[in-house]
């Protein structure tokens, strides 16, 4: 079964350790994690189920292509990394 890891910065907000879960796509693997850690869902995905703008996911070191449907396949030996994109580090801050 694939193993999924989360950015350490997420651990500041909630408990979401690396774990091994069932799933043949990124969506299925994430859903399995969120069943164990429900609060993590809205930290990684928005309310429409899309990957948040400044988050990135790698499967076996390759960045996923489908940020909306999360249909990228994951092999049973796959390593999935849920990371922060550097683009979001400053948060959005514009003059009013």
């Amino acid at each position: 079964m694939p193993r999924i890891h989360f950015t350490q910065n997420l651990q500041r907000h909630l408990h979401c350790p690396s774990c091994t879960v069932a799933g043949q796509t990124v969506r299925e693997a994430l859903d399995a994690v969120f069943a164990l850690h429900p609060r993590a869902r809205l930290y990684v995905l928005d309310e429409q189920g899309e990957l948040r703008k400044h988050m990135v996911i790698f499967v076996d070191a390759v960045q996923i292509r489908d940020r909306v449907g999360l249909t990228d396949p994951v092999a049973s030996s796959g390593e999935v990394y849920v990371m922060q994109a550097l683009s979001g580090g400053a948060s959005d801050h514009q003059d009013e």
Partner: protein
Amino acid sequence: MTTRIWVGTHKGVFTIERRSGRWTIAQAAFLGDDSPMLLPDPRDGSLYVALHHGHFGSKLHRSRDQGRSWEEMAVPTYPPKPEGYDETNPTSGKVIPWRVEKIWSLEAGHPGQPGVLWCGTIPGGLFRSDDGGASWNLVRSLWDDPRRKQWFGGGADLPGIHSIAVDPRDGRRVLLGVSCGGVWETRDDGASWDVRANGLWAAYMPPDRREDPLIQDVHRVVLCREQPDCLWTQHHNGVFRSTDGAVSWQEVPHVQPSVFGFAVAVHPHDARLAWTVPAIKDEKRIPVAGQVVVARTRDGGKSFEVLRNGLPQEHAYDLTYRHALDIAANGEVLAFGSTTGSLWTSEDQGDSWQCVSEHLPPILCVRFEGRAA
């Protein structure tokens, strides 16, 4: 005497307390986290904080012990967007996301509705909680109103609800300020809404659209607590007031040193007494002549005084955002903060100011400790 001020900044929440006659920073929380909105709930003393994580989205936290400990609450979320439905922003042509981009306003419901909270967001959704923030629902009556789809972004790329004013006489009457979408009112607890922007005008629109109520960029709307038919708004191109419950607005043209700004405050007892923090204009969002000043009227806007005692008067480029000016519930103390991280308080209605700090992160929200109305 009011003794506590909450300050939300680009990098954390700060508690300001009055000790030995001076206002000082007493406590910090959420250091490093963008904290655009706060709500000290006057009904039960709870403090709500909206965080805007660059990576993880908007979150909502509550403290019931004056900021010593926190619990994460539910965050407003838009319902699933209907399959194939796309609505575009009139100015950018980009699709309006059904996603909380930012929590831009947060207010307590009427004391007679103890669990009710209202939350305004970018891209324009209003949310309501009936259980103190344990759950939220999008107010569909407003979101589904076809007039809402004419709103567009002002400052931000997308439209947003930044002001929520609950009528102290009747909690079913709620007024909203929208950038850019005018002033909206419900008289039936959110079941239906109407726009209340007669008299506002927009310099940034062609002549035939200048008085269009749906595109007015009110930067902030405030209501006088004891005279709730009296409201003030700092609009994109001027200051306006209403004395008939927002049925009509009158321009207040003589604000000195300029009519541009974001914040406005009104005295809780005397609706003629109001303050703004002017900047040069929309294309130059800095203080006039590099001098930080506050404008005050005591006569409903017929005349203004320029208050500068205790404020920097040389090469000062502090800008005050729409939520960064507040007046205490008893009307005795004012406070405002700036993008440069300066925070000032006044205990004489603005005649003189004390600098609390010049080194805070950019200040987004200043709110006095709540008190039952």
